[in-house]
């Protein structure tokens, strides 16, 4: 049923319908309305789950780790500094192959303190062994949560749904919220493969000396790579069950005859689609490639759709300080080494909530039409940068 509601609220409704058995979260800033809603639903008896309030994100991650190890379907959500505080446990969860679902409301990292949107937080754990899926709008954010539990449980991998903080979490817009029975038909109950149980004592994630540790990382890496198939299949199943496309590895817009292709992740795709339509009316052929699955990175899919595209610009809301664009590096790596003639530009945009305007994007397209831009920061205000800072 099409409802008008806040992004966080849309997510919490779908998460509740996925029947998580244990939810744990730190209830104080940085946090979203998602846990507030879930706590209310548990409190009112509408959701049969354990809601465990904790004193830090480190504890929240530890609680869901323990609960998942005991065989419960588990959920948590955080953002920004909260995800950083979870970091140690985030790696353990992946190493133990626990199918926890976490919503990351993407926000910037301190210092300086900034509460606004960018992708810096989830980027800090991109190598941790989690699946990371990015939502374009609140419909997709809601839909990805239904898919998330299914993908995580089928692959025994934890999954992070990334949705732009504030821009999506605090935006009100219409979202088609499924019926409980539709979710029940789509998502079967969780049947854990290995659980810790006092009746049959065993341990998870204890100790691997140099004879074994490397193999655990190799197996985890292969599991991430293989999860691409599951992500695609679950997205296709979702489309069959719910009649709309959501998730998957990549999405494209106006790509067929595009002369310039913008590659990006998350909610900025919407603004870019509007710009592409405007440019199309002016006779300019610009296309869009959206990366939904950032980890695993769908290298083959990227190559398949971009191999004939000679002018590509990667726009991303995070930066590897001292290196440059992170998504840009992954895109460059998707092409054969040593090939010539392909222009791949890299733009960093929207850090700490800086507005990404259509005008600025238009200028970006005009510039990459003329030259390859190795690295640029969109809408940088030179007036507030002192000479001595450079």
């Amino acid at each position, binding site marked *: 049923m099409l409802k008008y509601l806040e992004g966080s609220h849309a997510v919490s409704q779908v998460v509740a319908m996925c029947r998580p058995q244990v939810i744990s979260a730190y209830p104080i800033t940085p946090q979203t309305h998602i846990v507030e809603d879930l706590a209310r639903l548990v409190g009112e008896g509408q959701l049969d789950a354990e809601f465990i309030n904790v004193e830090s994100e480190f504890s929240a991650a530890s609680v869901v780790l323990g609960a998942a190890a005991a065989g419960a379907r588990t959920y948590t959500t955080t953002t920004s500094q909260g995800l950083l505080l979870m970091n140690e446990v985030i790696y353990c969860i992946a190493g133990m192959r626990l199918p926890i679902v976490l919503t990351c409301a993407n926000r910037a990292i301190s210092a300086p303190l900034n*509460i606004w949107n960018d992708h810096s937080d989830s980027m800090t754990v991109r190598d941790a062994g989690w699946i990371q899926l990015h939502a374009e709008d609140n419909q997709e954010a809601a839909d990805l949560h239904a898919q998330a539990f299914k993908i995580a449980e089928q692959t025994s991998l934890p999954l992070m749904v990334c949705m732009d903080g504030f821009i999506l979490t605090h935006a009100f817009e219409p979202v088609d919220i499924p019926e409980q029975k539709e979710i029940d038909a789509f998502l079967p109950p969780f049947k854990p493969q290995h659980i810790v149980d006092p009746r049959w004592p065993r341990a998870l994630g204890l100790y691997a000396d140099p004879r074994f540790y490397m193999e655990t990382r190799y197996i985890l890496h292969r599991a991430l790579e293989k999860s691409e198939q599951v992500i695609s299949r679950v997205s296709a199943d979702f489309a069959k069950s719910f009649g709309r496309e959501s998730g998957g590895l990549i999405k494209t817009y106006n790509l067929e005859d595009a002369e310039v292709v913008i590659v990006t992740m998350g909610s900025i*795709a919407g603004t870019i689609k509007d710009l592409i339509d405007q440019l199309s009316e002016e006779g300019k052929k610009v296309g869009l490639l959206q990366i939904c699955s950032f980890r695993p990175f769908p290298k083959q899919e990227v190559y398949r759709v971009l191999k004939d595209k000679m002018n590509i610009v990667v726009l991303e809301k995070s930066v590897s300080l001292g290196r440059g664009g992170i998504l840009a590096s992954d895109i460059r790596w998707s092409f054969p080494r040593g090939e010539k003639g392909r222009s791949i530009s890299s733009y960093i945009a929207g850090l700490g909530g800086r507005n990404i305007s259509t005008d600025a994007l238009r200028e970006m397209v005009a510039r990459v039409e003329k030259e390859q831009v190795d690295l640029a920061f969109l809408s940088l205000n030179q007036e507030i940068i002192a000479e001595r800072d450079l």
Partner: protein
Amino acid sequence: MIEIRIHGRGGQGNVAAAELLANAAFKDGKYAQAFPSFGAERIGAPVQAFVRIDTKKIRTREDVREPNYLIVQDQYLIDTVPVLDGLKPDGLVIVNADRCPEDLQLKTTATVATIPATQIALEIVGRPIPNAIMIGAFCSITGLVSLEAVQRAIMEKFPGKTGENNVAALERAHEIMQKGKGQPC
């Protein structure tokens, strides 16, 4: 696509106003988007909220830079915040003020309307929260969103006495604007 920017101070129900307007447009069968400017929303601090209304799905996430309509919930913001920035020359600005539009001396070719919303809010709602009155004035002047849909949106968000008081305030604003149509003040 219609774009609305709401200026106010933290505590005046700016985000709620955006949310209610967009919800009402949705109830009228349109597509709508509402989002705050995500500032530090302390009581009294200048804040903004944005609304977009269209007949088709709204994809853009850009801040509203060139609004068709401005709602200013505090007349004194005009002195400290460049509220008129980007307002379409043929647009409309509605200001919560106890003065006539021309007394505000706004540098714009857009239509200017005023309504003493704080005073009305104190009378009807009992608290100086002008948002329902500002929405009422907006609906009354523009006809873009139906009053009936706003009433339903208000009752959904604030069931009970608070909602009823705000609906009464909304209706009062509508009456005032209808009566004052064609008159300066």
